[in-house]
């Protein structure tokens, strides 16, 4: 299995995402934002960081990068696609996922270990979790407050499209404590916290992030 990890100018977490892919047992393939070639990968990860310096809005410029045209086309055909943090912002700007990520309600940049509850275990990136499982992975962002209109929120809730929720106090003002969502088909997932930083107890708070990366291999084998 080959999983592409995209690097935009300003991406920070591409190396950790590639490392997580390797830990899961797949081959990580570097993809460059300016290159429309996906090199035949089976799935793609948009990692965290500050692509294009977060200019205009987080993810607003990255969405139009040459590599994104092909990623959007393949995701619409069912290719698994995971956006972490800035990657989640890119997916919302690209309209692959509904809603938007706005400034944290207390304005502070957050960096901490965060407890999440996994709510959806049918998406391509969460099938190796158990429903209701609580995990601890790092959360680090300044613009992580998930916002959408009431109609969209109801659609997400009613169709089991909320992948993970924050446990405890709302860290950033996200509606309904939303930490991650999926599209209708379940192949595209956006997640604000960082599972790629929690795959080895030497370098992270837990190994709770690893199932995101093994889940997609299960999904690809099952196809």
């Amino acid at each position, binding site marked *: 299995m080959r999983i592409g990890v995209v690097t935009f100018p300003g991406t920070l977490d591409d190396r950790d995402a590639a490392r997580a892919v390797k830990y899961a047992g797949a081959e990580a393939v570097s993809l460059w934002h300016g290159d429309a070639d996906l090199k035949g990968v089976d799935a793609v990860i948009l990692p965290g960081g500050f692509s294009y310096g977060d200019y*205009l*809005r987080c993810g*607003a410029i990255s969405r*139009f990068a040459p590599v994104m045209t092909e990623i959007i086309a393949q995701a619409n055909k069912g290719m698994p696609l995971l956006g972490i943090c800035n990657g989640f912002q890119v997916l*919302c*700007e690209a309209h692959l996922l*509904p*809603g*938007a990520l*706005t*400034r*944290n*309600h*207390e*304005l502070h940049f957050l960096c901490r270990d965060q407890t999440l509850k996994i709510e959806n275990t049918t998406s391509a990136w969460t099938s190796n979790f158990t429903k209701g499982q609580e995990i601890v992975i790092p959360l680090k962002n300044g613009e992580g*407050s998930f*916002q*959408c*209109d009431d109609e969209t929120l109801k659609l997400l809730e009613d169709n089991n499209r909320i992948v993970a929720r924050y446990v405890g106090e709302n860290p950033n*003002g996200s509606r309904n404590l939303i930490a991650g969502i999926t599209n209708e088909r379940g192949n595209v997932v956006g997640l604000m916290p960082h599972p790629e930083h929690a795959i080895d107890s030497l370098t992270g708070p837990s190994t709770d992030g690893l199932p995101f990366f093994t889940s997609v291999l299960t999904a690809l084998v099952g196809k």
Partner: protein
Amino acid sequence: MGKIVVDVMLKPEILDPQGKAVAAALPRLGFSFATDVRQGKRFEITVDGDVTPAQIAEVEKAAEVLLANPVIETFTVRAE
């Protein structure tokens, strides 16, 4: 040279933490007039010659796809 101005504002129902922070700072400086502050963005776009209705229409299209995010923001376009 003509100038086209695009003003982008968060929709009223979207929380604006930056505006709130500004609103909280004003009374600390002795300014007591504000009951609320909302913070937005202004784009000034320069074009050759006088602004034409066709250029305004083009800028409106650009605002819809790039300058604003219609999920959370509204925008106005005008010649100045």
